[in-house]
């Protein structure tokens, strides 16, 4: 089987449709993951042991099991208890929950990495708990988190093909459907690879820049 450029141009518009959905899912998933992660991180710091334990175990469970299976669950099992989500919504929720457990770790590490001396200095300055958080801890914790968060953002982008299992017409699904129509796999799959590689390389450059800009805090 030979590489066929005409075929490539023919299927390009269809694939670009897929890229749009892929990017949309990634963006929405990232926003959700950022919020879910914050919730998990706060719950795990909570003095309420029952809450922090439960959330901790749930997060461990989500992180230790495949996203693919979770997506099946959200899409095919939840309707049994009356929760019927459109495919894209189900996909975004799956991505957001799954990656939320990762971003929670980033938040935790970012907060833990603020040296203990800063908490103590804040206390010696008689700042209240909320003043300490808003003026001292958060401003120092966030910049080092940015590269790590961006990293998961890219990882999520590369896992969007899983959404094809729940009938979201993202890039991979479009490619498969094209392949099924014409019985040619090489071009669509290679193009999908190329799309991912280009977007990833682009994001890696962005990531390096973020790392340089925010990765270190001068003391």
């Amino acid at each position, binding site marked *: 089987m030979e590489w066929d450029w005409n075929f490539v141009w023919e299927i390009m518009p269809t694939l670009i449709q897929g890229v749009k959905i892929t990017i949309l899912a990634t963006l929405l998933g990232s926003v959700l993951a950022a919020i879910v992660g914050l919730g998990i991180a706060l719950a795990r710091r909570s003095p309420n042991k029952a809450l922090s334990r439960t959330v901790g175990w749930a997060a461990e469970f989500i992180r230790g099991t495949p996203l693919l299976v979770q997506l099946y669950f959200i899409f095919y099992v939840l309707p049994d208890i009356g929760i019927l989500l459109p*495919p894209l919504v189900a996909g975004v929720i799956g991505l957001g929950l799954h990656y939320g457990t990762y971003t929670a770790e980033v938040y935790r590490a970012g907060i833990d990495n603020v040296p203990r001396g800063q908490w103590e200095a804040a206390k010696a300055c008689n700042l209240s708990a909320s003043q300490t958080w808003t003026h001292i801890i958060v401003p120092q914790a966030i910049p080092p988190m940015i590269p790590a968060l961006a990293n998961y953002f890219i990882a999520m982008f590369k896992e969007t093909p899983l959404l*094809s299992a729940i*009938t979201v017409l993202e890039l991979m699904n479009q490619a*498969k459907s094209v392949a*099924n129509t014409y019985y040619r796999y090489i071009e669509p799959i290679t193009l999908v690879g190329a799309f991912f590689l280009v977007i990833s390389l682009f994001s890696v450059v962005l990531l390096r820049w973020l790392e340089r800009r925010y990765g270190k805090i001068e003391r």
Partner: protein
Amino acid sequence: DDSKLEQLKAQGFARLAIANEPPYTAVAADGKVSGAAPDVAREIFKRLGVADVAASISEYGAMIPGLQAGRFDVVTAGLFMKPERCAAVAYSEPVLCDAEAMLVKKGNPKGFKSYEDVAKDTTATIGAPGGGTEEKLALNAGVPRDRVIVVPDGQSGVKMLQDGRIDAYSLPVLSINDLVKKANDPNLEVIAPVQGAPVYCDGAAFKKGDEALRDAFDVELAKMKKSGEFAKIIEPYGFSAAAAMSTSRDKLCAAK
């Protein structure tokens, strides 16, 4: 040359692609492969001197590329003969014939009789296997791409219909019947056959270039059809041997 057959004989088994879509193909609880198509293939290969078959389950869309990539020796999965497919693979003579059906909610609320009806209702969505005959029939009938939902497997299709995610789910009649039996849901209704949709027959699909093997397969298939052994294998699954014997590859591949 018959080197491919010799190769299979030496190897002792032939690699089948199947789809796990009863009654065409099925995997039992103990992992044993059955279904009408693999059963026929197993018997014919035995007669050709290939002791056994090894089946791997594949998506419909991946079958022909897999065959071309040399992943399987033959596809026996209810892959209906159509002109484009005949161009891509080397089919045997017809094996299993079936009409198309649609699964809808009880009472057929949207009144579908044909794929065209689905196209006309601008809010209707139809589910079909990716790369399957039904997907193409729906698209050809004018249902826009975004209303043809690619459903990964039959079970998902039934579930999506029950949950109201799609308005109709289309598969061959016997497949739908099997699904409905398993689902055991009084709120489902089968429309069969779909009006305007042709009766299709599948054949064992070989790689282009393996015509010699295909011809040998055809010889044994013809003998079994004549002796009645063919009917004995497929009729318990609900297929009609007469239908397969009343048509031919050449007719089906030429059909518009």
